[in-house]
């Protein structure tokens, strides 16, 4: 009996586990799962020993590159990816915040050029523990409290 799996197992694909429940839809949007034709199932507000409630996403026949998956690190820092082949977990991957974050996060500074013209945002990670991102353009620091993911 696996209490965590409230949705059906998949044969081949990726299961993303340990997403904070309130960020499920951000993860779906960042990975573009709302725009693909592969079967996608997700469960939200599931019980988690570690985090209270969590979300889980299963995508059939889709495998991610590391740089793609690291995009979700800012909203799902504890996410674990289970790579499934023939119903078995063949690999587990953790996400890692990239040193340069492009086009995911909004600069908190209203006077920044990126909030006034269509510029792809770009940040350098200056603190991994507390998530502090320095805007490549206005040079202001967006921290965890101000973090807004598009």
């Amino acid at each position, binding site marked *: 009996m696996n209490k965590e799996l409230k949705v059906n197992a998949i044969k081949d694909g990726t299961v993303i586990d340990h997403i904070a429940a309130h960020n499920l839809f951000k993860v779906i949007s960042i990975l573009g799962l709302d725009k693909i034709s592969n079967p996608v199932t997700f469960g939200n507000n599931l019980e988690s020993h570690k985090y209270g409630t969590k979300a889980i996403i299963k995508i059939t026949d889709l495998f991610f590159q590391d740089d793609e998956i690291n995009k979700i690190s800012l909203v799902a820092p504890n996410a674990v990816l289970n790579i499934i082949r023939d119903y078995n977990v063949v690999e587990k991957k953790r996400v890692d915040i990239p040193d340069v974050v492009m086009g995911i996060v909004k*600069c908190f*500074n209203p*006077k*920044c*050029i*990126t909030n*006034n*013209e*269509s*510029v792809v945002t770009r940040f350098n990670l200056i603190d991994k523990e507390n998530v502090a991102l320095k*805007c*490549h*353009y*206005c*040079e*202001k*620091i967006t921290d965890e409290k101000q973090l807004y993911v598009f």
Partner: protein
Amino acid sequence: MINRSLVSISDFSKEEILKILDVAADFEANPNQKLLDGKVIASLFFEPSTRTRLSFETAIQRLGGRIIGFSDSSSSSASKGETLKDTIRMVSNYSDLIVMRHPLEGAARYASEESKVPLINAGDGANQHPTQTLLDLYSIYKTQGTLDNLNIFMVGDLKYGRTVHSLLIAMSHFNPTFNFISPESLKMPNEYKLFLDSKGIKYYEHLEFTDIVEAADILYMTRVQRERFSDHLEYEKVKNVHVLRNDMLANTKNNLRILHPLPRVNEIHTDVDDNPKAYYFQQAANGVFARMAIIATILGVKK
């Protein structure tokens, strides 16, 4: 440095800064060198700044270059809704170099990435103003004969003042000691203090503007702006505490020079103006030589 943009003072290394200052000294000795014959320089001021614009345009004229551009956004295509990107793409087809002032922060970095020709940031909002920093450095170098091991006092609005932040970063190459004098609410932000810690540079913070200035080689004064205070009484209290008067200079060092990015409001009493240690008007004049040096160096016309 040839063909490279100048967006932030940290784009230039210590050696590159020193090279610019040497070239500036050469231009001061021989101000009319027609090195930009046949060059077209775009001067794009998306917000008015007469002081900075005239300094740049004087530098370009002295070098014999030609200027195209506008002095505020109402006379530019930006007023018709053209994006910064499109303006820069167009202008970089016409010119050899762009000088740009823009009210938005990060506009200069973005424009430099969209431009085919190098770009000099003449101020992007509250972010960077590197040519001001280079003229400050030139003024310090000229009056002290060196940039090394100086005791630099910064007074006034150290929280929001971009000129003190850029100067702090630039001077960090030269083993300075800093003394920061400001009201509690306008203290030097933590990120700059951490930066100094990481470089092993000594600094001291003070709330009162007293005879501690007797140790100073450079006294860098800044405006305390009324709009920075939510509490009007606090502003009234502070604005009179951090005013430099001539009698405070009696026991200061002979080599002390007083700098200010101008315009001043009341933080330097007019009775200081005739003191030989007052340097802020010459400092502004130095801006032309510093900007000549930056332009000529980036265009590769001055060896």
